[in-house]
């Protein structure tokens, strides 16, 4: 029982790790980009009139929502697995 639960938890950790890496990469790439690029680069790199860095930063908002949504759905599946384990443990 304990071992099987640990298996589920390790799965969760794996998912968390991936999500966290994506999150940190996208989030900390913003200051990185700002630091590495020159003012001219930032000014000239535009996307239909709007500076690229704006769009990139703005995209963090939907990205946050998407990552949250992925986690929500993934953990729902894990919850079902735990439920199943519990039911087996009882019977």
């Amino acid at each position, binding site marked *: 029982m304990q071992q099987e*639960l640990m298996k589920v938890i390790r799965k969760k950790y794996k998912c*968390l790790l991936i999500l966290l890496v994506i999150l940190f990469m996208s989030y900390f790439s*913003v*200051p990185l980009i700002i*630091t590495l690029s020159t003012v001219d680069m930032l000014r000239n790199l535009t996307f239909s009139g709007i500076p690229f860095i704006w769009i990139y*930063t703005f995209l963090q*908002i939907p990205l946050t*929502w998407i990552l*949250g949504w992925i986690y929500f759905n993934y953990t729902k599946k894990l919850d079902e697995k735990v439920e199943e384990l519990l039911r087996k443990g009882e019977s």
Partner: protein
Amino acid sequence: MNLTYFLFFICIIVCTLIITYWAAKRSNTTSHFYTAAGSLTGIQNGMAISGDFISAASFLGIIGAIALHGYDGFLYSIGFLVSYLIVLFLIAEPVYHLGKYSLGDVLCARFPSNKVRGVIAFGTFIISLLYMVPQLVAAGLLIRLLLDIDYSVSVMVIGGLMTVYVVFGGMIATSWVQIVKTIVLLSGTFLLSLMVFSRYGWKISALIESVRQGTILGDQFFLPGQLYESPLELFSLQLALILGTAGLPHILIRFFTVKNTVEVRRSLISAAGIIGIFYIMTLLLGFGTIALIGYDVLISADATGNLAAPMLAREVGGDFLLAFISAIAFTTIVAVVAGLAISATTAFSHDVYHHIIKKGNSSEKHQLLAARWSAFGIGIIATLFALKLENINVTFLVSLTFLVASASIFPVLFLTIYWKKFNQMGVLTGMVSGLGISLLLALLGPHIMNTDGGWINSAPLFPLYNPGVIAIPVGFLGAILGSLLYKKDQKSVSLYEQFQIRAQTGIDTGGEKS
């Protein structure tokens, strides 16, 4: 004093008091008082979390920052939003599974000891107070500006209201004040941004063109580098922002108010949704302010830009709308301070009084009484501080709160949940070193040590405005070294697997517990 403003404020006060009256009839057990007896749904709790989190600093401060500094102001808000994912991924579920009323419960689930409980309660108390004081100060300044009431009177009004909510209504009143605040705030800013948009014929390009003319920064407005000169400063701030929320006790204890893990996740998802939408709107409002009002007018009214939103409201809707937006700002502050007061109250009455002083043996009735009295005491303490510290730099205190949270509570919580070899000594050293280093660096930093009118008139010993990049690692290091050097406590290591199962799934696989 303008009658319209006054009536709107009265209306808000009456409404929140009605909520409190209604809640007071229900707050008759400790479970109701501390956690609303887990009665909230995920969505409701999400709204309450947003209400707890979006402070006057966010509503007024960020709109102002965007209006004045463009991109850098916006980047600030992104940090606040993304921090919710950290909470969701790493902290929320274990906290819900392990704790009952307070963060002390969570840590004591692994290290049952009064020392641990005491140090966490102390941390909670300090952070809540650090955050409460600037909110109260900001509220006092805002009301003085809008209603032309004396600063001390307005601070006392807000402090008094906060105390009344928490003393009589406990978590139920606090939650519903926050929910109402979120609804009003969101719909108010939404309508305000629609008004701004309609001024520009619903064309975003017209708005941006107008922004270019309004700001003195010109094209620079849309580029980074206005607020944060060095990349290290920027990175440091972002680190404190993203990890800070996960160490804010008043946010974390909100997870106890729902009934299962799915609802915990749902509350965070909806909070992230609401906060995200809110920051998109602040972006629009910031643009609108600079476009419609212009840099010079804005800066002449208030150098920090905090009056951006009220000024914008007056511009597009006259006194009537200004009164409404001010009332919203007022609600915002009241809801946040109430949330902070309840977290400080829980730390004191549940952790210190019930567990440490009474050794867990006080009756339900006494606990409730103790909770109400400590809420009363905390209300008075916070109000007194705010009265004394009228001239304090509000943004500095807010950033200090995030710094302390991310350098002390977050490392300790994180390691408790995820590190096998962590032990009781680690908790103590982690909390102490995190708290100490953040306060020390802030004291030695340019906010306080400043040749240009700082409290300590000399060159700063520590160069960064945002010391997160040093303080957070020190907090972690303190906790890790503490537990490695003091290895006597091996029991919690061998029980770690069971603890992990309990933290992640809530299932108790036997073995001893506290």
